[in-house]
């Protein structure tokens, strides 16, 4: 389609050019067009070609037939003539059918145009035109073949033609005359002439075309013309023959057509139809040419035809057709006689040429249109053709009668027609002027494709108008120009633009609503209300498969407060909580409770055991010790204490059952590595089986004392001049433990030592005495000491310690307890043991020797005094008493106070070089103290007097007093141990001149002794602890006479003694 279009476009001519071209070389142009058409046809499709081929075959067949017929033709001419007539009528009938179809088409055309459906219309008209073209072409081809045939067969005809050509000029003149005649209105005559001429023209038209081709193709024919000139004499006959031949030819053709038509019913329709169409087209073409001629001859007819009424047109056409038929009929009858007609036919030829020019123009236009419009709609054409053909087939049987009837009626009709025409003429006169205007306006409106038709009509109308309408002509010219411009524009544009069919747009697709929806839409919501809901959403149920854990409260009791051991489901929660908190609180106290309680328990058990033992002993030893009410021996047969001499015994003044014993280093080598060390054992006298704590120090210990209050600290002064202390509260796990036998012993190293650390401020000679500086508080607390005094434990550590060395330097130390011990060892406190919490800080030092130097005159003689003992006045810590080596006791004060007696001396005036070995203050009368001397003399001093209250000489038979102590339970009883192991017990109430009991322990030397006792109300006991040389410690309980006393009587005695003395 596309290529077709393109090609055809290139081929097309512009109308103006074309027209010019045509005018210049009519024949050549015509030829060219035909060739063009032919080419196009070829391109157009295969079917056409097939058709040609068929035709060729047919023509060949016909040729054969023709030959046969020619041989017999002359013999059967008469018959043939009859036949011919029949055939002619048939032919005519066919023609009429065609004609009718044509008119139908035209009607349709008009109708369609009225409705504005130009498209279809165009298509049809175009198709017609195309068909016409095709038919012409085919026809020509037929003719050519025939011509050749004829050329071979007879020259006559050609001669005749050439002759006719010569006549053309002459006949043109005649034609003018004819036209004039026609104008005169001689209708009858005119009609006839038209008929005759029309028939002839038809032939001539064909002939001329042949000539065209001949001339064009064969030049030699021209030369032959000369010969033909010569033969002009024979013209008549030949012409006749020629005509005969032509008649024959036509007959043949008609026969062929007839055959075709017949065959058409049986054979393939398509091919046949096309052939038939061709044939029909040929006829139509002829008819058209005829009609055009006629129209030209008869302007009135033309006008008439132009009328708006399609019915009129139709009728007119039919008339014309009838006339045509008649004419042909007549023509055939009178052809031989009609020489005159011949000439006229030649004039018709010239007419025809004009017509052809017009046609050519039309064709040119058609070509344009065909080019772009035939391509799309070929299928449509075929359909239409088929339908038309079918119509024709149906109508065919009707034709003969109709045709004959019309033949008969023709005379009458003619008259009618004339009458109508006259009326129409008048009408046209009137319309004439308006017509042109209308036409122009219409031209502008209408599409160039089919406006051409009307244009043609109009132009014809104007040409044949009675009067020359210049205005209309001009308008037409203008409109033509405009139209051509538009045409040109459209042509050029269409080359550039592709027009095509769009998709089918669906503008609206609304599906039908089904009945239910419709119903619901109309009545769905009427009278409805929600009544119930079936779901029961709020009625939910929940189930758990796991059983709940059963719980019950049980309690246990500790310490038992109730009768039940455990379990009390009725206990309220508050009570439980309270109990729990209490329990928690108690658990802290429990430890301390257990600690103390266990001791008590152990003590009780030991006591029980010891009592049984002592009872046994009493039975055996009752005679040995007169004062003793019983004795208890501490188990000192321990591996590490073996063969150690006990240097001293010391009882705590607060915890009177606690005693320490200092075991000197042994000189005998043993397996134990502790040999060179001094060992201090802390004893509970009620627990004699084993010592509570074991303290170890590397060098010899000279003196010891307990901390005031509860026994937590042990202080010791050493022979190397250092003061050491042990903290008994330290965990045993922090100390070195040694497994001996089946028992494990913990040896505690001193917590703090002033050894090298405080060398500058420390003692430079061996420490002879360490004593705790008594505080007022301590003094008050003496009376009642609670066992569980945790407050005192913490607060009791704020006290001072005094230490005295041989050179008379008295140092005061502050005992400081650190809040927290450092396990890794403190970098600043170098004397502190890792993990230790108690240390000594040097507070002040007093040079006791200075005060000693200011002694009485006799002291100076004997040399420097040595400080040997240090005691503090229990009620006032500012007063301290130092025993010297001159038998004197120095009374000093720490804060520069002046105390009246500076020295306490013998009753004798002169000073004796005797060491003071022991000083002891009375627990009941703090201002009374006893002094034991190395010469065996014993003095009782009051603090306020230089002279003694009493002095006993030679009570020990000159033996030095080793130790001397007041009894704890009786104010007037004191014990004296001399170096000869004699123990003297004095009771001043009984005898104030000699001891009441003197016991000699010769078996085992006693190295030290210490008195103990408690003045409790129920359980008052007192006794003496004796340390033997062998290392045994023996506890001797005094008899009841020595223990229980009437204090008032004793105190009265002591008062009396002091007042008696002064």
């Amino acid at each position: 389609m596309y290529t077709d279009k393109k090609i055809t476009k290139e081929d097309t001519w512009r109308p103006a050019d074309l027209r010019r071209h045509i005018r210049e070389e009519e024949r050549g142009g015509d030829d060219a067009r035909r060739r063009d058409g032919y080419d196009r046809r070829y391109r157009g499709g295969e079917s056409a070609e097939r058709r040609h081929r068929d035709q060729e075959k047919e023509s060949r067949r016909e040729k054969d037939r023709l030959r046969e017929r020619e041989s017999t033709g002359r013999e059967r001419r008469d018959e043939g003539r009859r036949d011919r007539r029949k055939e002619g009528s048939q032919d005519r009938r066919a023609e009429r059918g065609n004609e009718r179809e044509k008119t139908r088409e035209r009607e349709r055309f008009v109708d369609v145009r009225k409705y504005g459906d130009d498209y279809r219309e165009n298509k049809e008209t175009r198709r017609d035109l195309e068909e016409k073209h095709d038919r012409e072409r085919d026809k020509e081809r037929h003719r050519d073949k025939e011509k050749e045939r004829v050329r071979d067969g007879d020259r006559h005809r050609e001669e005749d033609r050439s002759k006719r050509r010569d006549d053309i000029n002459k006949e043109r003149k005649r034609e003018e005359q004819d036209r004039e005649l026609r104008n005169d209105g001689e209708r009858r005559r005119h009609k006839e002439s038209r008929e005759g001429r029309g028939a002839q023209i038809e032939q001539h038209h064909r002939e001329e075309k042949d000539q065209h081709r001949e001339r064009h193709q064969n030049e030699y024919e021209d030369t032959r013309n000369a010969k033909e000139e010569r033969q002009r004499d024979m013209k008549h006959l030949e012409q006749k023959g020629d005509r005969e031949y032509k008649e024959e030819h036509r007959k043949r053709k008609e026969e062929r057509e007839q055959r075709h038509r017949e065959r058409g019913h049986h054979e393939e329709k398509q091919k046949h139809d096309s052939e038939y169409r061709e044939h029909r087209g040929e006829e139509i073409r002829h008819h058209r040419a005829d009609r055009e001629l006629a129209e030209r001859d008869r302007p009135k007819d033309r006008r008439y035809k132009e009328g708006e009424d399609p019915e009129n047109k139709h009728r007119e056409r039919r008339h014309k057709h009838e006339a045509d038929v008649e004419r042909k009929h007549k023509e055939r009858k009178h052809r031989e006689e009609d020489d005159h007609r011949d000439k006229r036919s030649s004039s018709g030829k010239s007419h025809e040429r004009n017509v052809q020019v017009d046609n050519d123009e039309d064709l040119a236009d058609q070509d344009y249109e065909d080019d772009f419009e035939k391509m799309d709609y070929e299928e449509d054409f075929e359909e239409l053709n088929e339908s038309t053909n079918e119509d024709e087939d149906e109508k065919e049987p009707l034709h003969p009668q109709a045709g004959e009837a019309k033949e008969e009626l023709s005379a009458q009709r003619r008259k009618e027609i004339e009458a109508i025409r006259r009326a129409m003429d008048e009408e046209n006169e009137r319309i004439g002027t308006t017509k042109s205007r209308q036409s122009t306006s219409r031209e502008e409106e209408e599409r160039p494709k089919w406006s051409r038709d009307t244009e043609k009509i109009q132009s014809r109308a104007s040409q044949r108008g009675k009067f020359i309408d210049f205005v209309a002509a001009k308008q037409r010219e203008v409109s033509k120009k405009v139209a051509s411009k538009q045409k040109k524009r459209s042509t050029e544009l269409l080359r550039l633009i592709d027009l095509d069919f769009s998709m089918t747009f669906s503008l609206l697709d609304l599906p039908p609503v089904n009945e239910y929806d419709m119903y619901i839409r109309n009545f769905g919501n009427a009278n409805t209300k929600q009544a119930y809901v079936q779901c029961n959403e709020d009625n939910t149920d929940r189930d758990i498969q796991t059983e709940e854990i059963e719980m019950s409260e049980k309690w246990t009791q500790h310490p038992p407060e109730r009768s039940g051991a455990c379990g009390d489901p009725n206990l309220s929660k508050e009570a439980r909580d309270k109990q729990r908190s209490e329990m928690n609180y108690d658990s802290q106290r429990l430890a301390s409770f257990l600690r103390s309680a266990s001791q008590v328990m152990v003590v009780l058990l030991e006591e029980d055991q010891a009592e049984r033992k002592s009872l046994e002993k009493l039975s055996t030893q009752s005679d040995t010790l007169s004062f003793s009410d019983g004795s208890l021996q501490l188990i000192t047969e321990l591996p590490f204490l073996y063969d150690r001499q006990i240097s001293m015994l010391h009882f705590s003044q607060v915890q009177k059952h606690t005693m320490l014993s200092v075991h000197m280093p042994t000189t005998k080598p043993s397996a134990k590595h502790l040999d060179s060390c001094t060992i201090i054992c802390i004893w509970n006298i009620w627990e004699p089986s084993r010592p509570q704590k074991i303290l170890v120090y590397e060098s010899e210990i000279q003196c010891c004392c307990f901390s005031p209050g509860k026994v937590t600290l042990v202080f010791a002064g050493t022979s190397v001049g250092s003061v050491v202390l042990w903290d008994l509260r330290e965990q045993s796990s922090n100390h070195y433990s040694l497994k001996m036998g089946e028992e494990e012993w913990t040896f505690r190293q001193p917590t703090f030592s002033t050894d090298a650390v405080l060398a500058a401020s420390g003692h430079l000679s061996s420490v002879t005495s360490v004593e705790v500086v008594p505080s007022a508080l301590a003094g008050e607390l003496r009376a009642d000491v609670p066992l569980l005094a945790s407050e005192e434990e913490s607060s009791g550590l704020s006290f001072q310690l005094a230490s005295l060395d041989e050179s008379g330097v008295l140092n005061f130390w502050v005992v400081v307890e650190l809040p927290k011990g450092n396990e890794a060892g403190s970098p600043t406190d170098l004397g502190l043991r890792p993990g230790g919490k108690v240390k000594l800080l040097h507070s002040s030092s007093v040079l006791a020797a200075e005060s000693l130097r200011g002694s009485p005159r006799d002291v100076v003689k004997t040399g420097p005094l040595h400080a040997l003992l240090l005691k503090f006045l229990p009620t006032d810590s500012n007063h301290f008493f130092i025993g010297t080596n001159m038998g004197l006791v120095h009374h000093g004060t720490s804060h520069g106070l002046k105390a009246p007696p500076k020295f306490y001396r013998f009753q004798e005036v002169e000073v004796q070089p005797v060491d003071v070995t022991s000083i002891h203050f009375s627990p009941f009368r703090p201002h009374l103290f006893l002094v034991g001397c190395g010469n065996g003399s014993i003095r009782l001093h009051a603090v306020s007097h230089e002279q003694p209250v009493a002095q006993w000489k030679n009570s020990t038979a000159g033996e030095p007093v080793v130790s001397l102590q007041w009894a704890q339970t009786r104010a007037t009883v004191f014990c004296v141990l001399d170096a000869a192991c004699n123990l003297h017990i004095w009771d001043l109430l009984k005898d104030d001149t000699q001891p009441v009991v003197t016991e000699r322990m010769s078996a085992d030397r006693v190295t030290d002794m210490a008195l103990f006792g408690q003045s409790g109300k129920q359980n008052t006991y007192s006794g003496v602890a004796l340390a033997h040389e062998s290392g045994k410690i023996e506890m001797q309980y005094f008899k009841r006479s020595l223990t229980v006393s009437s204090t008032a009587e004793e105190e009265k005695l002591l008062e009396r003694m002091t007042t008696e003395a002064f």
Partner: protein
Amino acid sequence: MEESDTYHIRPNHQQKFRPAVVKECIREIVRERLSGVQYNPEEVPELTRSLADSVKDKVKNSGFDKYKLVVQVVIGEQRGQGVKMSSRCFWDADTDSYAEDVFMNDSLFCVVAVFGSYYY
């Protein structure tokens, strides 16, 4: 030699027929004019005509110069029937286009189609 003319065979880009714009025009007018309108056989012919005119005027003012506009308005009553409308055009698909919009309420449906054909 005849001088060949030059033609604008394609519209300016701005002036090209844009269906979206036209559709918006249609929608605007139709919504405005038809919302809540009940189908009335007496009034509808006039209504269609005036709708078509107003749509045409509005689209003309949208600046599609050199376009020939064809406005087709169809209003029908909605009674549950099925309706199918379609169109087919023979045109130059490069330049020519169409826009359509459908309006429906419960009593009527309205289809407006605007075809724009380019003048070369």
